[in-house]
């Protein structure tokens, strides 16, 4: 008869001594495997008399359970130790930086364009576009610039060479030619779909785009961006114009009250014509809109000249409305503080990163324009 307590002491010592899972498994097989020492003892139970079985059974089963538990406990211990060792070996130096990442940016002028579009879209304006290379008719004649008039000279126009017929194309000096494309009735040119064509009144459009004048200094660049507005209906008057611009200015600069001033001015294509100034503080480096005592011209505007309407085939006694034109780049500098317009077009990556906008800063009515 095997000495059970001796066997238990023996197995317990071996379980406690093993240092890896394989050795532990070997001990388990030796004790509890098919021919293991405890399994063999269990097999003897069948051959015993009921009385002996009653006495030996619990002892042998108890031994099996004790050894099984010891092995499980040892296994758990060894596994934990192995995991700890592995994790310790996996340590990395997290003071090191992540891989370099480029920071993408939306150009401030385009951000401002998106902001302006957001405000005007909310006021019911849709977008119209036109080509950058225009003809004299759309850029000047139809807009009531008399031929050879000094007002044309003031536009510092870039000209393309004369063609066989003596006509010269030009780079549009303003976005106003698109007014003509939209208002001109009965036009059916074969043009690509993106170029605006005839609309019947009521018309309510904005026209964003590149414009060109032969001028270069800190506040003028040979290419710049304008956003034009045009509203034509039966009873649109200057009071609507003033409300529209005041509403825009307040929303764009995100201040509830911006003091503005309408001043008479002159443009060939509007009558009456005006410029709007905003009250601001120009004493420091940045212009502060809505503060101070200075005035800053911000937009040219007026009632569409009856000649322009007539040139487009609209009866000025039936239709009337207003137009305005913002300098987008300049409006951007006023809100975001870029000091020199020329930098807008210099593509310096440091400038773009500093003054540009994250892709996720799209103007949104819930979060505000900017």
């Amino acid at each position, binding site marked *: 008869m095997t000495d059970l307590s001796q066997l238990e002491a023996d197995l317990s010592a071996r379980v406690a001594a093993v240092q890896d899972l394989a050795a532990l498994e070997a001990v388990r097989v030796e004790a509890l495997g098919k021919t293991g020492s405890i399994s063999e003892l269990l097999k003897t139970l069948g051959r015993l008399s009921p009385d002996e079985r009653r006495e030996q059974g619990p002892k042998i089963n108890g031994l099996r359970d004790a050894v099984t538990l010891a092995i499980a406990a040892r296994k758990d211990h060894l596994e934990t130790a192995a995991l700890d060792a592995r994790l310790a070996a996996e340590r990395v130096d997290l003071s090191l930086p*992540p*891989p370099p990442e*480029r920071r*993408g*940016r*939306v150009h401030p*002028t*385009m951000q401002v364009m998106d902001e302006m*579009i957001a405000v005007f879209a909310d*006021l019911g304006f*849709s*977008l119209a576009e036109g*080509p*950058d*290379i225009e003809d004299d008719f759309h850029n000047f004649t139809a807009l009531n610039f008399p031929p*050879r*008039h*000094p*007002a044309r000279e*003031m536009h510092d126009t*870039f000209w*393309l*060479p004369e063609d066989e017929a003596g006509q010269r194309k030009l*780079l549009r000096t303003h976005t106003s030619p698109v007014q003509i494309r939209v208002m001109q009735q009965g036009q059916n040119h074969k*043009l*690509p*779909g*993106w170029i605006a064509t005839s609309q019947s009144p009521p018309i*309510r459009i904005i026209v964003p785009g590149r414009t*060109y004048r*032969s*001028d270069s200094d800190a506040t003028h660049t*040979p*290419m710049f961006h304008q956003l034009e507005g045009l*509203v034509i209906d039966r009873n649109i008057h*200057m*009071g*609507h114009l*003033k*409300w529209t611009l*005041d509403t825009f200015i307040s929303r764009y600069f995100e201040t509830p009250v911006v003091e503005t001033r*309408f001043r*008479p001015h*002159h443009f060939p294509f509007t*009558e*009456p014509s005006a410029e709007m100034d905003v009250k601001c503080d120009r004493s420091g480096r940045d212009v502060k809109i809505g503060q101070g005592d200075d005035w800053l011209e911000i937009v040219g505007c007026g*009632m569409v000249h*009856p*000649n322009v309407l007539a040139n487009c085939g609209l009866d*000025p006694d039936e239709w*009337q409305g207003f137009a305005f034109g913002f300098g987008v780049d300049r409006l951007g500098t006023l809100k975001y503080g870029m000091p020199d317009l020329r930098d807008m*077009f*210099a*593509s*310096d*990556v440091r400038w*773009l990163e500093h003054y540009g*906008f994250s*892709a996720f800063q*799209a103007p949104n009515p819930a979060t505000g324009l900017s």
Partner: protein
Amino acid sequence: MKFTLSWLKEHLDTTATVGEVVAAMTMAGLEVEHVADPGAKLAAFTVAKIVEAHQHPNADRLRVCQVDTIDGRQEIVCGAPNARAGLTTIYAPIGAYVPGSGVTLEARPVRGVISNGMLCSARELEVAEESDGILELDDGLAVGANAAEALGLEAVIDFEVTPNRPDWLGVRGIARDLAAAGLGTLKPDTTAPATGAFPCPIAIKVDGDACPVFAGRLIRGVKNGPSPAWLQQRLISVGLRPINALVDVTNLISVDRCRPLHVYDAGKIAGGVIEARLARDGETVEALDGKTYPAGPEICVIADRSGAIGLGGVMGGVSTGCSEATTEVFVESAWFDPIRTAQTGRATGIASDAQYRFARGVDPASLVPGLELATALILQLCGGEASEVRVAGQAPAPPTAIAFDRAYVKKLSGLDVGLARIDEILTRLGFKVDGAHVTPPSWRRDVGGKADLVEEVARIEGFDNLPETPLPPIARPAGGVLTLRQRRMRDARRALAARGYAEALTWSFMRREWAALFGGGDAKLVLSNPIASDLDTMRPTALGNLVDAAARNARKGFADAALFEVGPNFRGDEPGDQWTAITALLAPHAPKSWIKGGTDPLFALKGDLLALLDELGAPGLQVVQGQNAAWWHPGRSARLQLGPKVVVAEFGELHPRILKALDADGPILAFELNLDAIPEPKRKGVKTKPALDLSPLMPLSRDFAFLVAADTPGGDLVRPILGADKALIADARIFDVYQGQGVPDGMKSVAVEVVVQPREKTLTEGEIEALSGRIVAAASKAVGAKLRS
């Protein structure tokens, strides 16, 4: 243009201050550029009288003066030789800042004598460039009087005039508008015509094409010389230089009435005739500025028997100029055509006061009144006897009456202005109101219709009073106002910014040689008047500008630019030749990092391009290699096409030859996407997404290694494999491309992991075998691929 308050008050009876005048001008439509107040910096300076002046005990050139000042009697040391007892001059107290010398006065001993202030010269007060000794003023001035007033200094208002309002180029025109705006009363014009004592001995001839109308008269027995102080002072105050009385009179009237005149020394006019005509071939004029100008056949000259003696309406000539020796003067008052005068100004480069005014349109009705005013002043200042007035030619017709329904004021401006008030405003501005008709005055040739009349009423009534009126509601598209294309441009910018590209805006023009490198540079697209020679041609692509931008950044130490631009390119000068490109550039010089990358950055760029296309809703596109334009690296570039013809994008590395020409260090990667080539999505207007069919069964994956010819595009394997069973095959991913040992020469091995998604039931081994067979067959059929054994 400039004027002073005192000059304005010659025409306007007003008590307004400079500030009130400026505010009223602004609201009437005159843009005030600047108000210069030379007296502002002299607030601390006052009139003083020297009571005693003695030799300084320690200095030969200094005097010690006892001076009666606003601060009582003061002892002041003065170095001026004219410091003498009894002199009335200007005193600066201790603490005053002296603008002309840039010093703040301190009580300091001068050679042992304390000077309690300073006596000032004209230069020290910045009222003259140079001066000799301290100011000597009228003894009638009271001690303590303000220096600026004593010196007659006043604010000068400098303003811009819009081209429609030449009448504002005369002080009287401004006075008229300010009177209408309620700032005072316009004084009547009291010039009486001079009676002609004799017939004008000089004949006048005009060619109406050159000069429509010309008036003149001779004044004999004049004594020319410097103008009196009041006239000189008036000219100096607005920045004009006094010359002599005859010339000064014309300059005065030019500014006062916007009526340019010219005076000729009649003794120097050859042949007793003055003629305004177009210049003849080869004629030149030596003008009063001392330069000789060739006069072309488009230019109006003034001629006598000897030939051209002046540029009509622009500048007189030296040969007949008036000097102090002039005793007989011929005074010209003509009306030169605005357009011709503008052209002459451009052709000669002369921008004289007369040219500026005639080019904008002088009041034709001022012809004779202007001549009479000049006559009166000349007779007053120089004496003499005037001839009868001669007029040749025909003045342009005056403005005609406009039918004006007063209700149009409210309809167009929104302003509620009473009928009487409307007519009052128009009358004050010189319009003739006659029932239903309004006739503009001769000086308002810009007013041609009823909208112009509304502007007159509205600006005088005040734009401040315009009633803010919300726009009426308008039907608007429910899905937003942007077109698909406009939306794509906006999405493209944000998508590329999200992927690490910075948006640049580069010029729409570029250097012609560069344009030629990119397939452009057509003579039709070369600007006639570029702002700089390197910005002379409309760009065929933004690539060149972006490469240049990357190179400029690299030269500043930032060699890893990632830029993009959404903008126009030009194939020709017709509207349809303009197309919109999304152009991106990547200079693959990532900063050093302890983490090693190792993948070809060209594939990162391709990934960005494909992600962008996906964002814009483009369908799947074919990659076509070997057909890119010449500015791309022949081996490392490709096109993305929709069908065999429509090129949606080109991408790759730029050709080293191009980079060298643009002085840029390579490699530089780029893509150019033609926004207009992306088709509209098929499911237009449908917002619901297609139903999603998620199988509950586990997908399984099988790897295939194919052998294909080495020059077969590996990517071409994917589409046929996906097509082998569209229902079951969920994905096919190339995970290895290998050439070398174990692969026959001229071949490569492309390993593809195919993901199979069972749909209704798990697949049996047999079914999987059959599917594999179809996959291999499809790959073989499409690109001749064989399964690698």
